[in-house]
């Protein structure tokens, strides 16, 4: 079974039940995605959640999403327990609190983060790691806004 997220190459790649292709290549350990409404941010989470929830369903296992943790209001207390995961936080404006921001800022590589966020919440990240989702070559891809050498 294929992994949705490959830690080695730092790529999130899968095709959902409707045939939408996702191919997000990350630059570093933390990425903040913002941009227009309806670009597929929540959809990506919904699809991944279905793979995580379907993991116990032997009849339908298109992908393995074991190394992905999707944070919600209900499981956010488990954030500090994660290791070796791609942690995805959708609608982070509503979910993140000071303690979670502290955990994310202190994480030096145990986990990686994909955060959908528009409001500044105190996450320490250079502009090189801010991007938007866009459809390119039939795939939903991550487009970083800039790359400036010298910014970590």
């Amino acid at each position, binding site marked *: 079974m294929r992994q949705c997220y490959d830690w080695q190459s730092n790529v999130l790649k899968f095709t*959902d*039940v*409707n*045939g*939408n292709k996702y191919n997000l290549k990350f630059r570093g350990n933390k990425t903040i995605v*913002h*941009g*227009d*409404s*309806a*670009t*597929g941010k*929540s*959809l990506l989470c*919904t699809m991944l959640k279905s793979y995580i929830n379907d993991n116990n369903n032997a009849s339908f296992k298109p992908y393995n999403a074991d190394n992905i943790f999707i944070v919600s209001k209900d499981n956010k207390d488990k954030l500090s327990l994660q290791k070796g995961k791609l942690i995805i936080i959708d*609608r982070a*404006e*509503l979910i993140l609190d000071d303690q979670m921001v502290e955990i994310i800022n202190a994480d030096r590589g145990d986990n990686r983060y994909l955060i959908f966020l*528009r*409001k*500044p919440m105190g996450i320490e990240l250079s502009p090189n790691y801010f991007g938007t989702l866009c459809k390119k070559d039939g795939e939903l891809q991550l487009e970083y806004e800039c790359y400036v050498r010298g910014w970590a």
Partner: protein
Amino acid sequence: MVRLYTSGKYFKDNEIIIDNDSFFNNNVSAKSLSENSIKVMEEVDHAKLLDQNIGKIETPYGITGIQDLSTGCKTILNCIFLQENPEVYPTVRAINATECGKNALEQLFCYIDKTNMDIGIVLEHEDEIYECGNREYLINDSEKITDLLFMV
């Protein structure tokens, strides 16, 4: 005129809708969607209503239900719902649009402007909002501007 607030602190808890996704899922049914709402769904999410009885829609990402509309789109639909059903939540005076991208914000502002709706919009990000059209904005009940480039 569109009344914008840079923080939710201007409103009491029962005066503001913060979680637009939950509000929509709990209050707005497909049957209650008006012509205005259907138009907004098309303009923001490019979603076409296929069946108003069960809320089936067709989006660029596939066929799904209205619960899978973007949060930006749901925010505008909540506004329309509040205006069309003022008796349901009479204490609500504001809506938090921080989860809206600039495309949804522009539609939201257009709707408020067009209908002279009396509602405050809380916006805690400045994510490319300068691309929204020029119109009369009142910021935090004190400063009038026409271009969001000058929102501070």
